[in-house]
């Protein structure tokens, strides 16, 4: 199952750091996100793009995870050569993450 079926997401940027929220459509499914969408999984997923660490923060009160991706924006929003300087589309990319659950 794709992460898109379980969660929605938004990307934010500060300098060369991106943050990506992963929010359960149904808060009851939050434990699935917490179990499968780990910092290591997200770092591996973005291996080609993110050069630094990935840190995960949990917000069970709203059924959400927050990932902070260091060295993720090609040197920073104000100097990157990337077409999407802010990395706005990274959250959409993550929606393709495969979660090992049956549909």
């Amino acid at each position: 199952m794709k992460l898109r079926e379980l969660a929605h997401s938004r990307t934010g940027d500060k300098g060369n750091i991106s943050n990506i929220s992963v929010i359960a459509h149904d808060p009851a499914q939050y434990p699935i996100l917490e179990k499968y969408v780990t910092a290591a999984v997200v770092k591996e997923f973005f291996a080609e793009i993110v050069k630094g660490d990935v840190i995960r923060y949990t917000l069970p009160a709203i059924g959400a995870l927050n990932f902070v991706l260091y060295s993720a924006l090609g040197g920073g929003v104000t100097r990157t050569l990337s077409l999407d300087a802010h990395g706005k589309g990274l959250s959409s990319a993550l929606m393709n993450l495969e979660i090992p659950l049956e549909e």
Partner: protein
Amino acid sequence: MATIRIGSGAGYSGDRIEPAVELVEKGNIQYLIFECLAERTIAIAQQAKMKDPNAGYDGLLAQRMEAVLPGCKEKGIKIITNMGAANPIAGAQKIKEIAQQLGISDLKIAAVTGDDVVDVVRDGDYTILETGEHLSTIKDNIVSANAYLGTKPIVEALRGGADVIITGRVADPALFMAPLLFEFNWSEEDWDIMGQGTVIGHLLECAGQITGGYFADPGYKDVQGLARLGFPIAQVQEDGTFVITKVPGSGGKVTLATCKEQLLYEIHNPAAYITPDVVADFTGVQFTQIGENEIQVTGGKGQAKTEFLKASIGYVDSYMGEGQISYAGPGAVKRGKLALEIVEERLKLMGVSYQELKLDLIGINSLHGANLSETEHEPYEVRARVTGRTQSMKEAVRIGNEVETLYTNGPAGGGGATKSAKQVVAMVSALVPRSLINYKLHYEVI
């Protein structure tokens, strides 16, 4: 006063104009806030001010003020904005001029200055937060340095009777919190109420991003009426409990999902969101739907503010040149790849030096690289894009030129070439002791 209604009239400098007019006319608000100052905007504005001492404020200031000032004056709505950018005093004078042209009298405009810390930063060799290097490494290239001020100068201006307050660099949430401190007399050392106030400001500061903008994903997250998106209103009680809503009948929607996405937008550690006024904790925030397009928000907390203010420093980093050209039909991808190879070889042959070069095929790999973009379908059209970082404008221009010459020298059927070259003003940040930063208020009165 039982509740205060605050409207968010812009989420960035180029934002739509008329949603703010709708808030003035139909929002039943007491305060209208325009957050228009992105990270780099102030550095570019500083460069404009160096050329012309009367420039350096937001380019849309006049247009926005012309649109909302008459209605705000009539209804007694106060305006707070960071559209002063690098020159809040010139911005205040411009607002005065516009008000006079509109026949408005009895208006007090306050300009907040003191965020400019170029001298402080040049005198002390602070550490660049992003790289760990010393600021002396970019000293000669610095064009601007601005500390993030907090609520204090804005609250003082409100106590001074200002109807319109224009600032330079101020922490975005402070623009929204200041009227609450003023109206409810909140203690600026009640860290929990300051934390909750930060939640209010944070949720409102990107305007349409909480009312359904930056959210729609057809079939998964549908939003109606994005072409006439309503901007948000926070209806705040004295204890800090508030409801996010919008003008009835406007486009978009306010739901638990839109609020959750915006709560985490540009947040790192949600338990320690550092602002000039408080270290806010968002982890206990609760959203409750209390009506259609009405979400109640509680649970923001905080801890004591730090001894430092963050300063954002703009410097001339490099130059950037870019060119693009499109290919379509059978073999489009191969022709696009060939185009990129030719440009790379040309830059070598012609001795154009660059520090970094990026070769993209838009439609294939330009956003997320080859692996994440992999698909078995070959697109009908692609657009080749070459971007390079150089040390001179002259070399940056040559990158775009080498893409454009593909018209007559490159693969078959290349069309729609575009090129550009620009100076890159990049931003870094540093922590500066609060004690070195003093704000000032300047009033213009009609």
